[in-house]
């Protein structure tokens, strides 16, 4: 009987553990990033935890196309046109945001502007 109840407890415990794993401490984290003539004014990275909802709010004094690698999100930003990237930070890693020269097909001839760093819990 003891062994059975023990087994039940352990089953319940592992079920609780399994249930707990996908429940990230899901918060929403918002970052305002301002671009002045194609460079970031202020911190050049944002650090979040896996599971967070991340909102990157872009402002720029020049029209640009921005690309968040890995999550593969692209947005257009311009002087009168602030832009927003919203991602569910599912994958961990350090993801660069690069500027695509508008017009040039596949152009990537710039070093990353910004990094989104997603750390595991």
């Amino acid at each position, binding site marked *: 009987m003891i062994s059975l109840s023990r087994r039940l407890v352990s089953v319940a415990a592992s079920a609780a553990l399994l249930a707990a794993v996908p429940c990230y401490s899901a918060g929403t984290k918002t970052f305002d990033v301002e671009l002045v003539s194609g460079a970031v004014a202020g911190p050049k990275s944002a650090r979040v935890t896996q599971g967070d909802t991340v909102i990157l709010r872009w402002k720029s004094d020049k029209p640009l196309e921005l690309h968040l690698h890995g999550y593969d999100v692209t947005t257009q930003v311009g002087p009168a046109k602030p832009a927003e990237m919203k991602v569910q930070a599912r*994958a*961990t890693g*350090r993801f*660069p945001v690069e500027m695509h020269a508008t017009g*040039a097909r596949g152009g990537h001839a710039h*070093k990353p502007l910004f990094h989104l760093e997603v750390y595991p819990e």
Partner: protein
Amino acid sequence: MRSGRPTHRASVASFALFAALCPAASHAHGFAVRYDLPLPLGFFLAGAGATVLLSFVLLAVLPRQGAAGDVFLSPERELPTLSRVLSNNLVAEAIGWLGVGLFMLVIAAALFGDTNPFKNISTTMVWLIWWVGMMFINTFIGDLWAVINPWNTLFAAAEGLARKLKPGARLSLDRPYPARLEIWPAVILFLVFAWIEIISGEGEDVRKLGAFIIAYSLITWGGMWLFGREIWLRHGEAFTVVFSMFARFAPLARNTRFLVLRPPGAGLLVSEPVSWSTAAVVLVLLGTVTFDGFIATPTWSALYETYTGLAKARPALAGVFNFYVLATAVFLLFPVLFGGVFLACCRATVALSGRLTASETARYFVLTLLPIAIAYHVAHYLVFFLLSGQYIVPALSDPFGYGWDLFGTASYKPDVGLVGARFAWYTSVVAIVTGHVIAVQLAHRMAVHLFGDGKRMFASELPLLALMVGYTMLSLWIIAQPTVS
């Protein structure tokens, strides 16, 4: 840096722009983007602690004596069935021609496909599947490159055809290969390859990649024509030399009769000192992969800023104070520096053992450093391979980027969450510590074999052990650095 087809104009303005783009090249990596997070302090300390602790444990527990043969020779198990299957003509031909088919596909795609490197199979095939993947297979399984090498298969086929047309005809001039050249041609060609991958930033320009492959093919077939196929493979074909070096570690090998299974690393214990050019292969493998990690560290950034800052003080020398000059110098310095430190350790070993010369000692022990290089390759490339290697899935359905969908996988998007940061950290630390343990264990067996038992042998091992601990710490330090672009 993913540029379509850059046109270089020799105007001042474009030179300035070119110089401004140079830092981006430092992150180029042949092709694709890395998403590594730096190793956290806890992992670094655990790895460093385990390295030091296990080094002392190994010194204490490894057998110091016994019949030299017991310590030096590794057990082997013959695999007659597998040998029969793999040496079957049909199977061998199929593997060889599979290599040729992929080789042709890569060249055709590089020359005629879409110039976007993410839409063209050639970049993923060359930098991920072939260079990183072949290295893993040759290291952890066995020498696949020896049988799939398309340059070898094509030249051998041409030789066969020549014989058919005219019995006894030779395709090669069979000039005697100058013995003093050893395998230096392969070492130099490999340095050029690594420079293109790590420094040039041109690896993802698909048209240039096609041109590089054709140029290398001409060099290889030229060498085979001049000196004979087998001779050039062993001395001048950079990838045969490098991949067979990795395969010395592999569990699958060949004895005179069959394929054999042996403990990993067994092929690194040599009964004769290796040549200096063979030693150079190990030092270059250590140096280049370490350099590749080093150029993403803040230390490199600071060095780069200082160096390019000098150009402002002396504008006339702006051409000297740029990224390429500094990167190339440091790239070449790394293997030389490792060689110098290694030789100094060997001098100390000679002083303590009173046997052999420093040169002989170095050429006996140099291969035992390879597991440390392999470990760092795993730490550096495994996650990159698993994430960016996924580009092969859509590329196989649409190799030229023409919008085909041969296998229905053209719309597959690589999953960057396939493995996460935690996986990367654990595999890196486990690989680096395991590589260190294997290296120490091999160096110990080499020392027992060369110096016999006793206190002298024990003391003579210490300089090399210190070097290995130092190198392992350097590997851990590099992956723990905050990455910069």
